[in-house]
């Protein structure tokens, strides 16, 4: 978006603004409304995709100032991008709302609840790998310590948080099946670089180990993993400059490794990696480079489905799959995880609902009421399927669903697809 030279209305110059082209693609038909989780919960046009696009357009056309009120509504958005799936016109909603937030950020209008958490996370913790490791390792260290014995003294709500903390879990129950399958041996193993990521490695390192293990079984030759941050949290918070630096560093490291594929096991990171080009102006050489890079990025489920690897064991429990928004809507990946799960289960049950679970990065902390309502709806759907195992492809959903299930006293285990595939291959 090279908007800087064009009239940006009531937006600040020199900061990425929602593009006129993107905003004008919206015909305000309203077909996005019922796809939007916040509209479904709140019933307000201001909290619908059409409403937010309209507000952003009004600011650009100088009909509205960029105000605190608009900022609030832009941050009530989960950025789940279900509206992009529903939109017949192809409005690039995610790109628009992220640029809108960049403007809110630059104008100093970021909602207070966000400001502190975002500052802590994006400015203090994440830029310092040692601090990231230390902070996100705390829950894990706690879980392995004798302190845990005291957890039963906690109030019910806190106990649910406690129960969702990462800790060694029982192996996933599987049984041998008379299926032909097993690890794939390839003549020329494609080289791949995995992303261990910032939060994932500190908080859920076993998922990264499972990812590496399962990629090897699928015949990939792994180069050392990339352990930095992809910048997704920064982009979602409107901090584009910081994100650009992170993108350059990551692409550079990938190029040097000589790997063919870059594999992510987190939906949010994967979506960001595939959209790096949006961060750079079209005349910036990094724009082309980011585009090229995007074509080499795979979600773990894509990498596994492509390899043709087939499960040798099947899951014991009835299983369902929860679509992570940044897989289903942002990356349009729905078929691969399902076909993998059907390959290792005799009892796969569709959830029949792809509404956001409410986790959405730090949204569950900044907007707990809406997040809890969405979580409640999701858990009800899960209960209705009768599944005892819920599989998802994103760490945020995983922790959020675990907490909700514990609070509700449900007999379900929530697992990442990497663990499930590692247990059945």
């Amino acid at each position, binding site marked *: 978006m090279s908007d800087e030279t064009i009239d940006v209305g009531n937006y600040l110059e020199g900061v990425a603004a929602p593009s006129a082209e993107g905003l*004008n*693609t*919206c*015909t*305000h*038909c*309203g*077909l*996005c*409304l*019922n*796809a939007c989780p916040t*509209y479904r919960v709140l*019933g*307000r*046009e*201001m909290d619908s995709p059409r*409403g937010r696009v*309209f*507000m952003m357009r*009004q600011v650009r*056309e100088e*009909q*509205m100032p960029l*105000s605190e*009120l*608009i900022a609030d509504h832009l941050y009530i958005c989960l950025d789940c991008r279900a509206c992009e799936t*529903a*939109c*017949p*016109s*192809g*409005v690039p909603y995610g790109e628009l709302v992220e640029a809108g937030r960049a403007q809110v950020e630059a104008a100093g209008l970021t909602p207070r609840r966000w400001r502190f958490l975002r500052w802590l996370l994006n400015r203090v913790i994440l830029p310092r790998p040692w601090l990231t490791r230390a902070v996100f390792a705390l829950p894990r260290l706690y879980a392995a310590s004798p302190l845990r014995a005291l957890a039963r003294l906690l109030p019910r709500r806190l106990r649910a948080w406690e129960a969702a903390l990462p800790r060694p879990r029982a192996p996933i129950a599987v049984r041998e099946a008379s299926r032909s399958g097993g690890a794939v041996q390839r003549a020329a193993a494609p080289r791949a670089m995995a992303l261990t990521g910032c939060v994932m490695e500190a908080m859920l390192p076993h998922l990264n180990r499972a990812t590496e293990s399962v990629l090897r079984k699928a015949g990939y030759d792994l180069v050392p993993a990339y352990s930095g941050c992809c910048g997704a949290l920064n982009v979602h918070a409107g901090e584009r400059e910081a994100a650009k630096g992170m993108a350059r560093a990551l692409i550079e490291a990938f190029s040097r490794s000589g790997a063919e594929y870059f594999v992510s096991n987190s939906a949010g990171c994967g979506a960001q990696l595939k959209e790096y080009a949006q961060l750079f102006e079209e005349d910036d050489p990094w724009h082309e480079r980011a585009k090229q890079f995007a074509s080499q990025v795979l979600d773990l489920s894509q990498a596994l489905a492509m390899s043709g690897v087939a499960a040798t064991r099947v899951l014991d429990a009835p299983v369902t799959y929860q679509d992570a928004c940044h897989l289903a809507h942002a990356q349009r990946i729905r078929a691969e995880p399902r076909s993998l799960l059907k390959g290792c289960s005799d009892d796969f049950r569709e959830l029949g609902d792809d509404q956001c679970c409410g986790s959405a990065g730090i949204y569950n902390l900044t907007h707990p009421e809406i997040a809890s309502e969405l979580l409640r709806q999701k858990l009800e759907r899960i209960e209705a399927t009768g599944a005892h195992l819920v599989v998802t492809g994103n760490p945020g959903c995983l922790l959020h669903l675990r907490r909700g299930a514990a609070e509700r006293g449900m007999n379900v285990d929530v697992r990442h697809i990497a663990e499930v595939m590692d247990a059945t291959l």
Partner: protein
Amino acid sequence: MSEQPSSFIERLRTIVGDDGLFSEPQQLRLYMYDGSIDRALPIAVALPRTAEQVAGVVRLCHEEGVFLTPRGAGTGLSGGSIPLCGGVVLSTARMKAVLAVDTENQTVTVQPGLVNLDLTKHVAPLGFQYVPDPSSQGACTIGGNVAENSGGPHTLTGGVTTNHVLELELVLADGERVRIGSPAPDPPGPDFVGVVCGSEGTIAVVTQILCRIVRKTECVRTMLAAFDSCRAASEAVSAVIASGIVPTAMEMMDHPALSAIEAFSHAGYPVDAGAVLLLELEALREEVEDAAPRVVEICRANGASEVRVAQNDEEREALWKGRKKAFGAMGRIGPSYYVQDGVIPRTRLPEVLERVEQAARKVGLRVANVFHAGDGNLHPLILFDDHDPDQAKRAIAAGEEILRACVEAGGSITGEHGVGMEKRDYMVLQFPKATLAAFTAFRDACDPGHTLNPYKLLPSGLGCAEGGKRQKTMAQMQELAERNAAVGDAY
């Protein structure tokens, strides 16, 4: 009438609660549009949660002489939910419960804000469906459907909303709550339900609906036929119906529309074709299997270069997704569109389509056609840039020309999108003066205070100017006028 402006708003607030009322100018701007091109600002937006609250809002507006415009999802295409003369917008978005399902009597009781598709999803696991399926069914509400008497692709055999509503709970203009119709079919006396369906919020506000649901049909087959021209496709439509087969849907999409539809749906629509027909057969398996090859044959005999039958549910859904979201997809080929909605006898399709093309060409704009060919319900989409007031004017002129052509061909000025504010003045093309006077008299009897959705549906008698005289005594109305002027400048 010596009320301070704030006190009216405060009284509204006591009815719907703090959380249920908006009056900030920036928030109000979000309720000045719908799915079409008209715009006007309200002075407040109320989001009631119960029928009692709806009645309270309606009564207060009635007592204070403040205009009230009901709104469902705001997906309408004729300005029905635009608060044309200011006043209060009453949104039913938070009244979306399914209150009861009665599979034995095949009925469902719902609140007006329930989304059409959510109703079908709710009863689908029980083997039932709700028949009217407007193209916006993923977002539009049952209450909105009742107001507009909405149709959809399956109108050809299934009928429109009024054929699927048995009983209504209403709030009358003075705030009184009543029930009309009956759970049993054909109650004695006038068909009041039929009158309310399509009255566009001008005589009452609906708070509860008893809908008919039907068993899902055993077998559905969807096929796509590609033709060189709209003329050939139109002839195929007439030929299929003349053969005695009545498909549940026969939808036509012309060449300009196809590329946008395919770009969105990836359903395999042939983008090079001059026109495409989407046909659906629904019946018992034997019947469908007998009819399907005959339909294919008739299409071929009328010049179809390709006929494809959807092989499974995914293919079928992809084809329908392309058709149902076709209007919205126009954003891909033009900044904005103005959709018209006229009905003609289907045998006149070729000549009227010709006149549609001419009308657009005359004003220098492009037109795409996506419509219900089976029942001759045209939907020309006139493409224009809504940043350019002159283009908007030209689009409206072409629209009027098209409606004239429909009436002259023996048709009507609206099939299913309603009259709203868009076609209010065209009612004179359709109805004699005496008929319009009778309509107006009926409406005056229902809403003597003229507060419900003013200046919609009927061409005369109730302009904003006339109603506005009473309202000018209220300070908030002046504020409204200023805000309206600001909006006027923008568009």
